[in-house]
């Protein structure tokens, strides 16, 4: 069994609401929580600014990133990875997503809003080099 990543429904709703509010642009943020073997449990989601302000690209603001990391440390959480939205494309890493994925230990969550009333969230690990490959994690959204 591969990595399982658990997320509370309230946190899913939080990133979904933010991603919709950022349309037509991509939205992004960080996730943090706990790790127990192959099970990662998200305890906090962070909504950050997409400094690219683009509907087809995102970059996290490093200052906001640091603020979020400090909050994670203060709460005893570990950084688990990031999330971003794809306003018009499926929930899978694009070539650009893979090219810019530099942390093989991170979970990369992608929220597709391609069908506005049917959002799709998936989580991936992106590893290797030339080519980088992505592997889907088992995402469990809990009440």
């Amino acid at each position, binding site marked *: 069994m591969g990595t399982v990543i658990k997320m509370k429904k309230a946190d899913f709703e939080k990133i979904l609401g933010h991603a919709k509010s950022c349309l037509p642009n991509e939205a992004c943020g960080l996730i943090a929580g706990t790790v127990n073997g192959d099970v990662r449990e998200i305890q906090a989601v962070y909504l950050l600014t997409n400094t690219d302000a683009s509907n087809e690209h995102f970059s996290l603001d490093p200052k906001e*990133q640091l603020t979020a990391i400090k909050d994670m440390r203060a709460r005893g959480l570990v950084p688990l990875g990031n999330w971003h939205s794809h306003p018009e*494309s499926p929930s899978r890493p*694009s070539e650009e*997503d893979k090219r810019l994925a530099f942390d093989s230990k991170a979970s990369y969550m992608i929220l597709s809003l391609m069908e506005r009333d049917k959002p799709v969230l998936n989580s991936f690990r992106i590893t290797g080099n030339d080519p980088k490959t992505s592997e889907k994690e088992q995402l469990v959204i809990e009440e």
Partner: protein
Amino acid sequence: MQITVSGVKKEIKDNTTIAELIVSENVETPEYVTVTVNDEFITSDKLSSTVLKNGDTVEFLYFMGGGSVR
């Protein structure tokens, strides 16, 4: 001396530079990592000349970005 790296306290030798710490910590793709020391962003041209002090707090921030078009 003792510093905190990514939230973990570590013993390192005196006069260690940030560039040396990046190597000893096996930081992946360091060219895409921003380093902060005590919340101050260290520019890449200062990594080899910045010597860490006892009690410093270091964070490695991976560039995080992507795109949905391709």
